[in-house]
């Protein structure tokens, strides 16, 4: 495990050491993948965006001034490129529904408890996907990434108060959507 800080790695990269970039990718790839994947539930789409994020980082790193932390900058790129992809696609998907429907049609009998669990999982994913953009990105960064509000505020350039309000509304909407769906 490389002990160099992000800023040391960036400095080494700027001095011509490409391997420093590799370490940054290995350090953050999993976190970034999951941020993108929560925003874009399809793996292939998420994979495409993740690659684009790191290509962008590679091409921009020489000019990275370090005004913010690398991590803040990287998350901002990840959230922005993911939202671009969502806007590009526009069409709403019913991702998990297809899998579940196929499973039922195949005649496999699932235990009742598992069926209910699958249904709840589907509804929650659907609820998250239907959240307005701002609430969705705050929810993903806060709930799944467990980032402090102060960090999210730097990433999204929004006040902490605004983030808290968005997070509250996101959580509430998810519960309401799932409750309504289970009725």
């Amino acid at each position: 495990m490389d002990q160099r800080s992000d800023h040391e790695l960036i400095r080494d990269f700027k001095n011509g050491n490409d391997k420093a970039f590799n370490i940054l990718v290995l350090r953050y790839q999993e976190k970034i993948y999951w941020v993108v994947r929560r925003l874009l539930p399809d793996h292939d789409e998420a994979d495409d965006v993740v690659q684009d994020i790191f290509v962008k980082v590679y091409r921009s790193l020489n000019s990275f001034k370090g005004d913010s932390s690398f991590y803040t900058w990287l998350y901002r790129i990840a959230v922005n490129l993911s939202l671009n992809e969502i806007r590009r696609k526009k069409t709403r998907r019913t991702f998990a529904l297809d899998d579940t429907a196929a499973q039922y049609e195949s005649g496999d009998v699932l235990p009742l408890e598992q069926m209910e669990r699958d249904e709840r999982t589907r509804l929650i994913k659907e609820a998250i996907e239907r959240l307005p953009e701002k609430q969705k990105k705050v929810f993903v960064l806060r709930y799944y990434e467990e980032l402090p509000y102060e960090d999210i505020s730097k990433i999204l350039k929004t006040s902490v108060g605004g983030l808290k309000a968005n997070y509250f509304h996101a959580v509430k909407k998810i519960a309401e959507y799932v409750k309504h769906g289970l009725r």
Partner: protein
Amino acid sequence: MDCDKIQELLVGLRDGTLPQEERQSVEQHVSTCVRCTNDLALIDEAFELLRDVDEEEAPTHYFTNLLPRIYERIEKRRGRDLGFAAPVWLQRLLAPVSACAVLVLMFGMYKLFNPVSDPSQSHLMEIVSEFPGEEIEGVAESESVSSVLARAVEPSQRLMESVGNPTMVSRDIERVLVDDQLDHGHALSIFLAAEHPFEDITDEDVDSVIKKLNDTSL
């Protein structure tokens, strides 16, 4: 504290991020307020549901293979940018860039003969300067700039469509000026620069900026 303020703090009450001193006043408010009690119940329900969701997994070996695939993509883009023929992005960018250059020139002349300051333009520059190297969304989310963005869509699209047709470009510029939309071409160039502060602009980048400008106006 009123309910709107309390609502922001309810989630913190449950995820442990609320400081002790606020916790007491929130709990006190909730105990006497039906609306906030119901909201807190919903939050509890949401967290319980979320905890119960089956965790997804990334495909096996995905993270082991990601780095080589990133380099493959970097090389592919580098190869495309180094092609001998004029890259498509350059061809597509030519018209808006030259249009912007002419606009800047004409803007200078306009200012020379109309030395009245343009508040929207300076306000736009002020906003953009607050976002050095910021992604376009960061700039676009500023409400003050959205009206300029919205008005930038049509002229920028016309400029994009007129690639390779200088007559059309100059006619377009004339129209932009006549319509008193001088700052739109400028806005496009500002947003291109804001979106890509550190790198070459590719054809996808131009498409993406135009797309974002369109989306912002919806």
